[in-house]
């Protein structure tokens, strides 16, 4: 049975907030509220073990190509937010934890439950 870790009060989170909670002695879990959804991932990058959840949340960068195939610049796509590992910049889709450059790699995902006012992560 999964261990429940109390993260805190749901009302303490506003859009884009995260909280990193201990998961035992030698690991942590990052809990996020993004676009109204809760997400939780291990604070451990599959690349070289960096603390991925301690980095920035950044919108996906997209290239803008016109119908005639000409390059028109780049833009942020705020519908897809990325967790960015601060060690090397590996980016992970907040929705599923997959590395956006190579989806064979991903952050370990945990379930989040909100019961009443309390937010729990199931580790």
């Amino acid at each position, binding site marked *: 049975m999964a261990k429940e870790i109390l993260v805190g009060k749901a009302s303490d989170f506003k859009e884009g907030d995260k909280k990193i909670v201990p998961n035992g002695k030698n690991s942590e879990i990052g809990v996020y509220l*993004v676009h109204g959804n809760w997400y939780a991932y291990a604070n451990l990058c599959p690349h*070289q073990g960096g*603390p991925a959840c301690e980095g920035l*949340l950044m919108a996906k960068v997209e290239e803008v190509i016109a119908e005639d195939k000409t390059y028109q610049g780049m833009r942020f796509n705020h519908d897809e*937010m990325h967790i960015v590992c*601060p*060690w*090397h910049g590996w*980016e992970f889709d907040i929705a599923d934890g997959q590395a956006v450059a190579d989806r064979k790699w991903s952050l370990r995902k945990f379930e989040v439950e909100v019961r009443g006012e309390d937010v729990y992560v199931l580790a």
Partner: protein
Amino acid sequence: MELATSDRYHAMSVDSFDTEKLLTNAARQRDARKLNEFPIFDADAHHYESESISEIIEYIDDDILNHLARANPAIISSGRGGYQPMGGRITRYPLRKIEETPADGVHRDVHLSRRWMDAMGIDYIGLFPTGMLGIGLIPQVEVEVQYARAYMRWLTEKILPSDPRVKGYVFLPFNSPEAAYEIATEFGDKEGIVGFLITSPRYKPVHDTAYMKTYSYIEETGKPLIFHSGLNWNDPLMSVTNRFIAAHALGFTLYNVIHMCNWICNALNERFPKIPVVWTESGLAWVPWLAQRLDNDYKMRSSEIPGLKKLPSEYMGDMYYTSQPMEMPNDLSFLESTFKMINAETQLLYASDYPHWDADMPMTIYDLPFLDEKAKRNILGGNAIRIFDLDVSDRYPNYKAA
């Protein structure tokens, strides 16, 4: 401190920064792998000498250049272009400014270095500058010469004596062969100096006759000669690229490719067989490529390189390579093949490149499934201890080479 992000809803504000905290997971890797049980030498570590530029400028004797440097401290790192911090994604770049260090007489660079060394389990480092890696691109030769001498005086007086774990290399102002020789001989036997550095982004042929007496001196010292690569986005060839990733991936490789080609094609391995030549910060995958290209051509055109007594690839297998930025293909058999071609067990030196953006932790070597424990320890420290002739008795009194 507010970090730059893509929008205000996902802003990140940081009040303090501590390298040790950032590297908590590195310390866990260190403990899980027992990396503190054997010596690790990081052959390519960096400091940001630009942050101490006012101290370095004090060592510039030339009055005119001293004044110009004080008026324009950024002169040493001008001209290369780049986006190393990845739009702020690598948070240690902006945050290092707010990291506090004790005011105890030990230089801040040494304090910061110790923090990440201890976290990663690294015992000793070979320290390279950062901004000065591009100084060979400045058209004014005298600027490179004056800065090289000032940097070396500062390094050997203010940095290296602070901690025997921190080693340094003589910065050769290679655009002036005479000054390169003078500085090599002036600083080559200073305390803490373990090798000689040529920054690769520059346009001087390494086989020029004017450098032979410098190589002869280096060979006499027995210390390695290190080519540290870099990029120059303003290079006419590189300027065809429009993304930093391309300028970086190509630039950091090509300068060492060219110097390596010239070194081999002018039979400098035969002229200076006792110089351990080290190729730094180009990754490793270029070595099999170049070795195969040169071997193939050499078998047809050996009359152009009569000084060689064996295949180019065999000379390349005699030279040394630092690991970072090590290619990590999903199919590790590619990397295993590269290790085989470069004789990694004896010729490869672990390098972190920390604190730069593409730094490699010791686990990048230690976790490779195709290496045995002896090979891992050689690459992480033993090979460097041998070629840099390091005394590690202060930390490992009973150390014996594997």
